[in-house]
């Protein structure tokens, strides 16, 4: 069926098979490959997006469920060449290695800081515990989010 999704403020349409996830539709049909396909079963958080402002794993949402809704992906955070403060903090802190988890973590961190602008360490760890990173051991990701919370 044809779906209409408002991705990062733009109206986009795609023809989707009913079994397709929002992640597949974003990546393969709507032109937003920034959200990543690491587990596709809601365990790793690499596909984290905001659906009407709520943090979700795009792999667990059917594309047709997003019909008529607003989606914010990692591609929608920067203003042109100017990175979002969370993105800039990830760059500065060395929080990016292979970077495959980064889009999901950036979106999750943006969501966290919206809800809790100055999170405690425990809160920070718990909030990001749904996003797996295999490269960094998380330390520099925590540094980045702490820096962004102060920015």
């Amino acid at each position, binding site marked *: 069926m044809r779906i209409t999704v408002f991705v990062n403020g733009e109206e986009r349409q795609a023809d989707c098979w009913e079994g397709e996830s929002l992640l597949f539709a974003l990546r393969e049909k709507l032109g*937003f490959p920034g959200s990543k*396909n690491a587990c596709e079963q809601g365990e790793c958080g690499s596909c984290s997006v905001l659906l009407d402002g709520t943090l979700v794993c795009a792999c667990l949402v059917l594309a047709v469920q997003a019909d008529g809704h607003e989606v914010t992906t990692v591609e929608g*955070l920067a203003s042109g060449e100017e990175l979002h403060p969370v993105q800039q903090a990830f*760059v500065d802190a*060395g929080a990016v290695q292979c970077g495959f988890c980064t889009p999901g973590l950036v979106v999750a961190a943006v969501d966290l800081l919206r809800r809790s602008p100055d999170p405690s360490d425990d809160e920070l760890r718990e909030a990001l515990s749904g996003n797996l990173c295999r490269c960094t051991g*998380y330390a520099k990701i925590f540094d980045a989010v702490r820096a962004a919370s102060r920015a």
Partner: protein
Amino acid sequence: MTQTAVGRIGQLVARTDAPPKVKGEFAYASDLIVPGMLWGHTLRSPHAHARILEIDISEAVSMPGVHAVLTHEDVPGEKRYGLEFADQPVLAIDRVLYYGEPVALVAAEHPEQARRAAARIRVEYEPLEPVADMTRATELPDLHPEKPTRGHGYREDDRPNVVRHMVIRHGDPDAEGDVSVSGVYEIGSQDQAFLGPESGLAVPDGAGGVDIYVATQWLHVDRAQVAPCLGLPLESVRIHLGGVGGAFGGREDLSMQIHGALLALHTNRPVKIVYNREESFTGHVHRHPAHISCEHRATRVGRLVNVRMQILLDGGAYASSSTAVASNAASFAVGPYEVPNALIESTALYTNNPPCGAMRGFGAVQTCFASEAQMDKLAAALGIDPVELRLLNALAPGDVLPTGQKITGSLPIAETIRAAAALEPPAPEPLPRTPIRLPGGAGNTTRGDGVKRGLGFAVGFKNIAYSEGFDDYCAARVRLLADGSAEVHCAAVEVGQGVTGVILQVARTELGIDDVRLAPSQTSTVDSAGSASASRLSWMAAGAVRDACRAALEERERRPGEEVDVERIYRHPRTTPLDPETGQITGERAHVAFAACAMKVVAEVDVELGLTRVVWIGAAQDVGKAINPQQVEGQIEGGTAQGLGLALMEEIQTRDGRITNASFTDYLIPTALDMPPVESVLIEDPEPDAPYGLKGVGEPPTVVSTAAIVSALRAATGRELVRVPVRPDDIVF
């Protein structure tokens, strides 16, 4: 993508790939889309060992959207390939040797159509008894009677299922000490669990050749395996680096490269293959499970007299890099200690378990876990402080390894041990406390009544770069352009470790200019860089880029005002093989250089529930020279996390050779709640043979952290804990 960097050697340099990665604009191999593209899917064996009686594709080919269904009969060239030995069929021929072995391929318009068509391929199997237990493999039917690894200079061993058997005899292997401690240790199979699944896009060039855009670790060795199977000359196969979402050894062996190219050439359409997570668990090699028996003999004052170890490594169904892993396990079995006598036996075996090969640490992880447990045991038996015992036996330049190799370069073991030991752990946290700070986290419903705290320590080392006479080299090409800028070509693969930054830092330092670009990595514009593995690539790429830059500047002096384009190949000092009978060096050295890491760990264990929490890790690492300190720290933190995973939670579980936990629901890797703060100290003792004195930094933390964490768990529980990952049952019962 062309990349530009700021910063020179030794400076904290922001990665050039970081901005596109944080914006979601970096193109990973799985992100590639071209018009007219088909999706490939691989049908895999549901059996660990079976004979194939018949493959019937007739129904699958008529399914909607399907453009091709291929079997082994459609492989036009060599039917087998392999990283070091061509023992693995491109597609299974008359038998399957492991669960998940590729049997047939489908290309279709939509990935779901491809999956559904693959499900309609009818394969008739006759299941056979799997060889599932490595400790019995030499008594069971030979899975590879053709002995693919024979004739490569290894010790002759005619027992069934032996990939490589090696023995290191050093001094008097019967030498007695005043005290002796023994143990039998087991290490489970670990998955690299990189987040970016195996992916690639194969594009036919219209002239019979193919371009493959793939996430890999070594472009040129992929080409050398792919082209013969396609029946094509090397130049008709061009491998381009697709963005890599982590590797850790798991991308050394081929995944979709030949399969994608076969489908693309057959359909004359671009074909993309992306594994899902379950397929990824069967689609790459793993860390070898190991079974290690040890005896350490020492004098009353704690000097090691004799170390005897028997190491069994389960290589799974195909050879991959098992021969080198077996050798590395043996070479580093004793740990970074001087011992006058040793008898080390290391055997890699074929089984019908998932194939094993390279993973960060490469054999040294398994033996470090065993030998460091032995050192703790010895310290307890002698009543000596474990750190003091390690210092007493620490290797130093001039000492001789069990292989007879004299340490000629940098190896500051004692300094590294002292630096880690000097780190001050945090004070114990009071109880009761917020549940997420208890062992087991929020799942722990107690008030912490059963929580015990333990302090552990371990040190380990391994080789840098390829060993045993391998012709290990890296090429770089430098162009000095008329506008004053420079362009560097190097096939070094950026897997996330930051090698592109190292290349740019070196080029900027050598050329003395800021405007340096790094061209995309591919096979057709520059010679091989070798693999992103063995902690070798920063060293090798730095050497090659340095040499090419210097040659380019000389060329410019000779021909002022003209554009310069030079390519140089860098080799590290030559190594030679080990004697197949004695395991002794046949030249000056079998390994070119070494790097060490020491760790101090505080862990808490709820001894009633069997739950654990690593509280703090202090690490000191011998890095030679930190080219980019922030990235070096990142390697230490990330490498430590992978070792923590092996210590506490990560294991590929099999039943009769079938993987039973191929998902991130059932195979757990450390999360943000599992990782403690890692405090790291960089020991800079320049390696004389390396460019700028640098050493590779990726593997040492992974080698050591498993051993150090379990040492802390032992201290907390008083249990022997001879197996990783440590399970709650091991602590409670």
